[in-house]
């Protein structure tokens, strides 16, 4: 099982945390072909492109979640989708905090893993941190050492 990346979105649709575990050889395709495989002058920074990806991911899960709830009823929940190249897993808490993970196509359901991240890492290290703000504007309060270390260890343990 390979885990590509992980994102957290808050209830204001902002991406408050993102992390990628892609080996540099894969994430940075040399020399020119950019994410979509088209040669394009690489004018924008890597961080800007990652930010764009986060926005696209949020748009996708937001639309699919609404679609699922419209068709399956209000108690239905969007779990995952798979393409030929990757699989996206989704978990949403009651407070509209959204956890998204991208893995390879062969991986089993990661819903419980995302739930574990929520209760064991998010609640323990971010919510229970007295210095952490209520709203995590720009990722404030999420990027603390304990959370990042715990997350990295947890994910590497899975791979």
């Amino acid at each position, binding site marked *: 099982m390979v885990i590509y990346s992980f994102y957290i979105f808050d209830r204001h649709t902002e991406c408050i945390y993102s992390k990628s575990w892609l080996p540099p050889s*894969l994430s940075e*395709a040399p020399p020119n072909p950019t994410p979509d495989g088209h040669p394009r002058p690489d004018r924008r920074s890597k961080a800007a492109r990652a930010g764009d990806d986060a926005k696209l991911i949020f748009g996708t899960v937001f639309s699919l979640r609404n679609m699922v709830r419209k*068709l*399956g009823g209000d108690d239905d929940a969007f*779990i995952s989708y798979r393409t030929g*190249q990757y699989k996206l897993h989704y978990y949403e808490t009651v407070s509209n905090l959204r956890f998204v993970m991208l893995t390879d196509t062969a991986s089993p359901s990661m819903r419980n893993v995302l739930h574990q991240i929520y209760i064991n890492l998010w609640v323990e290290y971010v919510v229970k941190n007295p210095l952490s703000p209520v709203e995590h504007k720009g990722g404030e309060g999420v990027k603390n050492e304990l959370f990042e270390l715990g997350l990295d260890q947890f994910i590497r343990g899975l791979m």
Partner: protein
Amino acid sequence: MTVFALIIINKAGGLIYNRTFHEGGLNKISTNDYLVLAGTFHGVHAITTRLNPVKNAPGDRTSTPSSVPGAANIVNRPEPSSGLEVLESENFRLQCFNTMTGTKFLLFTDTTQANVDVTIRRVYEMYSDYVMKNPFYQLEMPIRCDMFDRKLLSYIREINNR
């Protein structure tokens, strides 16, 4: 094992066919909502193609079809990344089949349904036989072909009664 519904979306994102086979599987939504859903799905499908985190390494481009004679002269393109294929939720499973021409077949089934890709290919065959070969069918327009309706209904009924 139940097949709930079938939706066909043309290459522009318009809804051209929509049929429910099993009541109670999915919420009833209006035709207008189905049109919105088709358009939304079309857009999301395009985005999911772009989101591919695994970039093609330059070495991969030329590796595969070298065993074919004469293939060395052809510029090898990487396999285009496919968009959304299977979506899972708590209450249903959605399989999407994207044809070479961009028409999308969406099959809604229950979460335990097996071999949906076989079913969806059979539906595509029926579409080619009874819709595309119908001389009165206008391309990209809503499908109103009795033969297609009848054959599809009997095929799906067979699956649902298994």
